[in-house]
């Protein structure tokens, strides 16, 4: 006989019932009494069948059959929840919208670049952005959860479920359309012209500077950024060709456009940062005065400021475009089969 089987086997039962009671509210303790009676009856029935008292192992087997105390208590107690099934879909939607489609883009496209601009270190910027995103995410999720808990507790009293009008439902979504071939072809021609222009600019500065090309030269930072700008244009051309060749890839235009916008945003961001890091006294990041004296230097300064302002405006435009395109891309990804009145019978059957 082992040590365990020498102990009073019914003590194991008491320990089990104590553990079940721990997880039950006081108002449900009579259920624990019924459970206790049931288990005692099972032990008695088994003992009568064997013709002897049960040992600890046999009592243990009965308890194990009944289930883990926390699980049994969970089944015994009435179902309770913070956010019920009626408003849970709305809770999940709001949470997803806030965390993924609002906070994430803000942190990636605004907070991250700001941290990078202030710290000057990519690693430190990523670290601090993730930290801030984590804290902000938890805070937002906590507030949303609390609001929905309040709604859950009050909606049955306010009878929100009954107060709705079918006429207030949103209109039917339009089916996803394939990209227009004519529009894409025009964009392709425009991009090809832009590529040709970009390739010619190093040899013909007149194309970008006009008459000022006689006394202004491109600044050294173009050596760094000319290639990325060129590559972005080539990528845009390839994207448009793919759209023309495969019009059935309905999600490609939206997602590739988003990727292109984000890459453009990164390049513009680096250009603005590089311009900001140029020494103050001789601030000529984009164009230099090659000749013409003091007047040319003044013109170069005005041109440099104009280009910088243009780049900042471009950055803002690209950022807004990125947010809008992210929304469009997500909608195209999450949108299910288009529902039209004519297809209703198919859905029903």
């Amino acid at each position, binding site marked *: 006989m082992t040590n365990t089987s020498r102990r009073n086997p019914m003590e194991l039962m008491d320990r089990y019932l104590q553990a079940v009671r721990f997880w039950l509210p006081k108002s449900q303790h009579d259920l624990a009494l019924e459970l206790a009676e049931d288990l*005692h009856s099972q032990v008695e029935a088994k003992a009568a069948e064997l013709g002897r008292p049960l040992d600890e192992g046999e009592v243990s087997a009965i308890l194990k059959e009944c289930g883990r105390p926390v699980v049994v208590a969970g*089944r015994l107690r009435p179902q309770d929840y913070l956010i019920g099934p009626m408003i849970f879909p709305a809770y999940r939607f709001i949470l997803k919208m806030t965390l993924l489609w609002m906070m994430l883009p803000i942190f990636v496209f605004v907070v991250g670049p700001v941290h990078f601009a202030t710290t000057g270190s990519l690693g430190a910027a990523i670290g601090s952005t993730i930290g801030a995103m984590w804290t902000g995410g938890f805070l937002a999720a906590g507030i949303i959860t609390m609001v929905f808990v309040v709604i859950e507790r009050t909606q049955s009293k306010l009878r929100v479920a009954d107060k709705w009008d079918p006429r207030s439902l949103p209109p039917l979504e339009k089916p996803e359309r394939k990209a227009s071939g004519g529009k894409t072809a025009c964009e392709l021609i425009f991009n090809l012209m832009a590529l040709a222009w970009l390739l010619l600019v190093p040899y013909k500065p007149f194309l970008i500077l006009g008459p000022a090309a006689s006394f202004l030269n491109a600044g050294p930072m173009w050596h760094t950024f000319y290639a990325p700008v060129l590559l972005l244009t080539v990528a845009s051309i390839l994207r448009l060709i793919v759209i023309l060749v495969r019009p059935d890839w309905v999600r490609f235009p939206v997602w590739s456009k988003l990727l292109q916008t984000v890459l453009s945003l990164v390049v513009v961001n680096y250009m603005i940062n590089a311009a900001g890091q140029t020494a103050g006294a001789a601030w000529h990041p984009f164009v230099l005065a090659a000749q013409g004296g003091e007047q040319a230097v003044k013109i170069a300064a005005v041109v440099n400021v104009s280009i910088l302002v243009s780049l900042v405006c471009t950055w803002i435009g690209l950022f807004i475009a990125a947010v809008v395109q992210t929304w469009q891309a997500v909608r195209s990804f999450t949108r299910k089969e288009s529902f039209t009145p004519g297809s209703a019978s198919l859905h029903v059957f």
Partner: protein
Amino acid sequence: MRNTVCAVHYMANGKQSGPEPFENLKLELRRGCLVVAVLGQLRKEQYGYTLRKALADDGLEIDESTLYPLLRRLESQGLLISQWREQDKRNKRFYRLSQVGEGILTQLLEEWQRINASLEKILQEA
């Protein structure tokens, strides 16, 4: 305990929780019958353990943590009457069908007959 009816297996969103779709569908089918079976058994007064045993002997096993909340729910709906009494030196809670419960059981059995007849008809047609 493979056939034991256990409420925790059901998920609110209708997704299957286990690996076997048949087991889940079977449990779902049996769950509806369980209330009728319990009400039917309690035309005669019984306490929890003997009720479970009687159900199991008739082929409908049910575990403790499913039966007692169900009894509580049926009692709160006025279908059952319960009373704590001492028997064999132990306190036991005895349940029996109330008058309301008898009426509901009759209605449920009629409904059961209708469903059964419909199912037989559907299956014969197939």
